């Protein structure tokens, strides 16, 4: 159960090797979290993440989960929920793709869309149903600022996140009054290890900052969280910029 400050006792991470998810898990373990499930494709990285979190005092278990195999979601996630209440589900899986290559290879683009959107729709609905049955819990969905307005530089990834974002907002409204909270997190460009060395973009953020914002959002029972917070203002302006102007912006 979550306590009065929204700190969960159990956490399920979908996409168990995500840097943002692991940073969040570390923070939550420092609060109240004792049971952690890391769901992801079996890999040494997943096991290493489990070992690291275990060292911090949590009871960590891993479970094989593939976003591209929605047929198995019900069974895999059903088993996790059958083992006990899950207070927070963190949907952190997703791939950035490679815009230039994806434009050449439609199948690669489809993979981005299937992972980020259809996989998330399936997993999100399964988790929402399970949370609704237990009468409490939060579903944290990692969206992206890229989904807020299409950019030349990453519109394939952006469109998948736009779909996910809209889905999560609607799901949150559908779950109003059921005791389940859906929180949409919209970080700016995140400086993960994979992106190290690239030129720094404006309003970018770090996995640690996103994790901090997620913990705060859980405490405040927020519906939407922007990281950094100033993105909310910036994007509300950019959202209305005329397209001829937006195209010319150095974004």
């Amino acid at each position, binding site marked *: *159960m*979550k*306590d*009065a*400050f*929204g*700190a969960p*006792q159990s956490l399920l991470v979908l996409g168990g090797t995500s840097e943002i998810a692991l940073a969040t898990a570390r923070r939550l373990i420092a*609060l*109240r979290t004792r049971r952690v499930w890391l769901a992801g494709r079996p890999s040494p990285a997943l096991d290493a993440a489990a070992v690291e979190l275990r060292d911090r005092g949590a009871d960590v278990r891993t479970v094989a989960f593939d976003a591209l195999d929605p047929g198995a979601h019900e069974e895999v996630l059903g088993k996790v929920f059958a083992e006990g*209440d899950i207070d927070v589900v963190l949907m952190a899986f997703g791939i950035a793709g490679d815009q230039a290559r994806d434009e050449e290879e439609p199948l690669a683009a489809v993979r981005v869309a299937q992972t980020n959107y259809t996989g998330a729709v399936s997993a999100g609905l399964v988790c929402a149903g399970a949370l609704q*049955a*237990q*009468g*409490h819990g939060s579903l944290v969905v990692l969206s992206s600022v890229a989904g807020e307005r299409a950019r030349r530089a990453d519109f394939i990834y952006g469109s998948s996140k736009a779909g996910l974002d809209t889905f999560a907002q609607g799901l949150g409204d559908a779950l109003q*009054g*059921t*005791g*389940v909270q859906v929180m949409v997190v919209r970080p700016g460009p995140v400086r993960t290890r994979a992106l190290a060395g690239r030129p720094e973009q404006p309003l970018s953020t770090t996995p640690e900052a996103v994790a901090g914002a997620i913990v705060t959002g859980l*405490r*405040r029972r927020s519906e939407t969280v922007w990281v950094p917070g100033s993105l909310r203002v910036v994007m509300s302006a950019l959202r209305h910029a005329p397209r001829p102007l937006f195209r010319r912006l150095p974004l």
Partner: protein
Amino acid sequence: MSVDTVSLTGWGRTAPTTAVRFRPRTYEEAAAVVRGRGPRGALARGLGRAPGDAAQNAGGSVLDMTGLDRVRALDEEAATVRCDAGVTLDRLLRILLSRGLFLPVVPGTGRITVGGAIGSDVHGQDHPGAGSLARHVDALELLTADGEVRTVTPGTALFDATTGGLGLTGVILSAALRLKRVTTPLVSVSTERATDLDDLLARFTAAGSDRSPYASAWIDLLARGRATGRGVLTRGEHAPSSVLPAHARRTMRAPRTVEPDRRPTGPLLPGGLLGRTATALLNEVRYRSAPRARTGELRTTAAFFHASDALPDANRLYGRAGLVRYRFTVGYGQEETLHRVVRRISARRCPAFRAELQRFGAAGAGLLSFPAPGWTLAVDLPAALPGLARFLDGLDDEVAAAGGRVCLAQDARMRPETAAAMYPGLGAFRELRAELDPTGAFRSDLARRLAL
């Protein structure tokens, strides 16, 4: 019986969860709900005055007991009453006062049910003399997991598990209470101001202080420096009829009809008013307007015991995030811990408006009952205060190190291991529950969170 799906919180308005709420009007309907419960169990709920999640059952059934509100038998000769669990203490007090009777234990709010009061084994300002409510219960009717109604009497293991048992042993359907007699509905109140915490504790224990059974103090937790822990001590005793003028003595016991409660309810106040500055100002005014020393002031019982009930929805004052109540007790001889806790709250400048210090006498037999000999301090704090979670964990450690405990019925945030360390009766409680209710028919969010 009405049935609906609702999102429920405690009085603190934190951690909402959803349950199916049933409102039984007879014992049979209540038994049917317990028998037909789903896998997530059932739980009785009264007026939802527990600040935390004690009366919530996420995804399960919640029995709203306020529909069971009949006073079944009132024996004026023997001074006993038998009533349903859903009767509120407010209503019961008004009925009793019109007959020269009074509840043996009156907690800080009248807006709780008899069942809830027993389930959290409430205490009053006269705990050193009167003990907690369980001491005055003659018998209980308890609806257990099999859907049967059992009569539970003091001295049995089930009674000790049920009083203060947070509704986890079954649904209390009715209770027989022993009452006390009063000659007037008035309380003779004496007030004194204490300049710091040492002064306050000394006044509490001063010679002759046990003449007035009721005593509690408000502490100004925003006072700093030499004034840290200053407060106002209020004592009271039931006024004898000699304090009333002659005409009032005749009519005193006359009104047999009970006026319905007409105090307003509903959101009258905007939320989030109690910031640090506003609270500091209010506390200053409250402290300075209290008399240095005054005796013999007459107040009605409602004004003396339940002054805070006059402000409906006072919980909304703490803003959208709600409030967290921190109530703990430390034994006599552990005053240094009490000092440290008060100093830490005061140094942190928490906007604490409600802060109440009382004394406890001998503990009762309830396995999870909170009162234990010593001092008890209750503070209401806005849940939105940054860093409050960790701060209160730190206070938990102080209290546990001093052999004290934090009140379960009012908790919304403790760690399971802390709770287990503070309540040595928990092992016996778990054993009894496992034996009586192996499928876990009665569950609450509090029990899930603290693994009770």
